[in-house]
């Protein structure tokens, strides 16, 4: 797939998603209160998008991941929340 073809196929969709992210950040910034670990991880992941390095999707996923290696003693619940609270 040539770059022009990639842009033809995905630019409008990616543009829409980028505006959604911008609107999400505006919404969060307008809402009173402090950033929690999720929003901090989100802002950190955003910085990856502006770099010239490859594998941006992988590096964003890593930014949200639990980096520890040992099993935990007990499950705090069944669900994941999308960001590691230990940072």
């Amino acid at each position: 797939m040539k770059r022009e073809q990639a842009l033809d196929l995905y630019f409008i969709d990616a543009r829409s998603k980028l505006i959604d992210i911008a609107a999400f950040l505006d919404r969060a910034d307008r809402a009173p209160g402090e950033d929690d670990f999720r929003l901090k991880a989100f802002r950190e992941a955003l910085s990856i998008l502006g770099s010239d390095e490859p594998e941006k999707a992988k590096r964003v996923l890593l930014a949200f991941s639990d980096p520890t290696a040992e099993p935990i003693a007990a499950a705090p619940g069944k669900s994941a929340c999308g960001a590691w609270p230990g940072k």
Partner: protein
Amino acid sequence: MRYIEPHAHMVSRTTDDYLKMTTSGCAAVCEPAFWAGFDRSSVHGFYDYFCQLTEHEPKRAEKFKLPHFSWLCINPKESEDMALANDVLGIIPDFLDRPNVLGIGEIGLNKNTRNEMTILEKHIALAAAHDQLILVHTPHLEDKLKGTKLIIDLLKADSRIRPGRVIIDHVEEHTVSLVLDAGFWAGITLYPESKCTPARAIDIVENCGQEQVWLNCACDWGISDPLAVPKTALEMKKRGHSEKAIDNLIFKNPLRFLSQCPKFKIG
């Protein structure tokens, strides 16, 4: 177009979905045991569920001429309760000879706890003792990377396990190479809101190769799409992938992996 749906929780879907899948080219559907959305209170609930997977659901699929296969286990979301999990492990061998059972799955981890690890290890031992294929669920979101590493370490620790007979599912960009480099098969799950979109799934295949990869929709009672695999095939066509490459990925690859179980036969 023809495809195999190697991971779908059809007990949670309507009969209309069978019609949609069959008319979209689905040649077989495989259903791993999973969490019902609530914790079952005793082993009797699992006995009934395994009967549903091996008796009732194949009959429902047969009405649409769709071969139905299943995998058995207790899902990691319920394996924190060790007593229940051990009871369920005790009844699984009674079902392994049923004609549509392909192996043990979807086992794995959820929150990466010690109890989940213990039950996963027992599932792996059960599969090895009965020479079963294995289908592994990897954890969600922030827990996936760590869980995938723990799962791979456990599988590699049992010398009876042959990686080519194990598929590790729900890989994403940060875990796919860990899985493939260790010799396992990798499953890419297509979800509207989490896991992979069709575009990302094809990116992964283009970057990592498709030799030991399958695509699945993992449709269940949550937000999911039973036609995600054929829709991804359309996305591949838009990018210029050949009909042969598409057929290899969505039909021949799952056929090759699943045919390691002699019970997997489709018309």
